[in-house]
């Protein structure tokens, strides 16, 4: 029970009344006072109206994360950070010394690259500019046999399969360009004819190399693979690119890369191979963030106009049913149930007799 109610403290009490903070007794006192005093009745009516006005506001969360993609990404990043932390040995005085070692710095750098795209873009520009200049010089002096100079060509000669396999971990450099221009790509091909090839992802040959980078998770750094996916995103309709992204989604060791691959594949229609990769991720990926993203992507496809024209993989229903019952993540279980419901209603409404297609 609050202090005695009078006209001087009525406004505060009306605010609490409108906010639903008063108990039954205090609420009744507020209402009774309003019946006796016209001024206070106006105050109460104003507060109730103000509260209703506030309720009309569309909350930023509804605009900024309408499909829970941000939530899925946050979860994925958090769990991956925890995985990384768990993988690190316990600190000791010796550990503190080793934490200054270059590979720890590299790991920290890798995390920044993966989780802070803004910082990573700036850092990559800086590091890339410095390291690229120094490394090329060093490469010329040390790595190459004397008498076999680097040839720099602006229009790359076709790169063979054998050459692709020789591109080293540090042999691909992507340099973002201003505006909407495709990033500049520089490749250092070591064998059989060492050379540096430059171009953008608009070049078919460079595109082939970037697709190779995406599809070979263990051979290149995480940051390079993420950048390659971004660089190839506008060309995701290219079957070769699509195949590489699907491959990354199935097999890349880094969940952030797999998430990025799903995002890139969103731009592609409902092609069967893409559907298959997304269903595979939903069914088998051990990272719940990736599974959530895959499920959301599947739901998006089901809502798209194109969906009625493109057959849905006949595994979809079984996988959704399995996720609904068995997924460890409650969100996935619930969303899978929704997707199944949608699928059933679409079957009844629009899919011709014979059901979905093999």
């Amino acid at each position, binding site marked *: 029970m609050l202090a005695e109610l009078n006209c001087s403290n009525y406004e*505060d009490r009306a*605010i*609490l009344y409108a*906010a*639903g*903070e008063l108990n039954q007794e205090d609420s009744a006192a507020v209402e009774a006072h309003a019946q006796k005093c016209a001024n206070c009745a106006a105050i109460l009516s*104003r*507060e109730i*109206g*103000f*509260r209703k*006005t*506030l309720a*009309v*506001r*569309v*909350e*930023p*969360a*509804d*605009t*900024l*994360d*309408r*499909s829970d993609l*941000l*939530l899925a*990404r*946050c*979860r994925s*990043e*958090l*769990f991956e*950070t*925890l995985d990384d932390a*768990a993988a690190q040995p316990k600190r000791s005085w010796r550990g503190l010394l080793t934490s200054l070692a270059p590979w720890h710095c590299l790991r920290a750098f890798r995390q920044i690259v993966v*989780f802070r795209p*803004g910082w990573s873009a700036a850092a990559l520009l800086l590091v890339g500019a410095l390291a690229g200049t120094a490394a090329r010089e060093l490469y010329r002096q040390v790595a190459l046999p004397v008498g076999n100079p680097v040839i720099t060509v602006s229009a790359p000669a076709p790169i063979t399969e054998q050459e692709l396999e020789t591109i080293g971990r540090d042999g691909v450099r992507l340099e973002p360009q201003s505006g909407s221009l495709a990033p500049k790509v520089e490749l250092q091909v070591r064998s059989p004819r060492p050379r540096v090839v430059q171009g953008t992802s608009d070049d078919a040959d460079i595109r082939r190399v970037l697709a190779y980078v995406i599809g070979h998770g263990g051979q290149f750094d995480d940051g390079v693979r993420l950048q390659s996916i971004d660089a190839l995103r506008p060309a995701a309709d290219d079957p070769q690119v699509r195949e590489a992204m699907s491959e990354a989604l199935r097999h890349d060791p880094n969940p952030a890369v797999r998430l990025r691959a799903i995002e890139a594949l969103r731009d592609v229609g409902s092609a069967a191979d893409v559907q298959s990769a997304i269903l595979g991720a939903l069914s088998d990926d051990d990272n*719940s963030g990736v599974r959530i993203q895959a499920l*959301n992507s599947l*739901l*998006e496809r089901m*809502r798209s106009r194109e969906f009625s024209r493109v057959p849905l993989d006949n595994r979809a229903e079984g996988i959704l049913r399995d996720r*609904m*019952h*068995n*997924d*460890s*993540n*409650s*969100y996935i*279980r*619930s*969303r899978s*149930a*929704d997707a199944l*419901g*949608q699928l059933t209603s679409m079957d009844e409404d629009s899919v011709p007799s014979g059901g979905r297609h093999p």
Partner: protein
Amino acid sequence: MQSEMMLRSSETSTNSATAAVAPLAPASSPTLSAADDRTLIERAQAGDRSAFELLVQRYDRQVLRLALNVLGSAEDARDVYQEAFLKIYRNLRSFRFECAFYTWIYRIVTNICLDHLRRRRSHPEDQPPVLRPVSFEERHDGDFFDRQQGTHSDPEREVLGHEIGRKVQSALQALSPRERMVFEMRHYQGMKLRDIGEALGTTEETAKNSLFRATRKLRTQLEGLR
């Protein structure tokens, strides 16, 4: 169907007083996912990672929602999410069940959000981008849950809602960080003033005074809107 209802109730629970205590989803592994908070916390304190993940999944939607509403920026909200749950993970062993777990989580989250808001105040150039209102068509092109929300509304009301929403948003930005937090938690997260006071490390009376100040400021700013 049951799971759909459970999730929807979790979505809408942000407006209720018990928002932070999200209802449990149906359990596929009854031993763990149906366990109460206390069991999960104790297991997580003993180093059970899957118990911690379940705790995260119970509370992170509300945490992200609060951060998005208060900061108005997906990037900042993402930072708050990561920082908050890493802090919770690191300090979980020190949680002694002296208050509700969600209060403890909110204490951590609100402190991080307040830091962000204060930083912004001292660096006005770090303001979040102005949110583009979602059009009626876009809203109705949304996902399952968006469409459920839109079922009972009409276009005129939605357009008006966006206009009012934009003005309310800009008025909210003029509040002090603490007033902003109290107002957001009371009106949009549905928390009681007692819990808000606890989460902010202060008393219910102080939270109440912040609510009064915030309401008066907002009312002045939004005068003539209705």
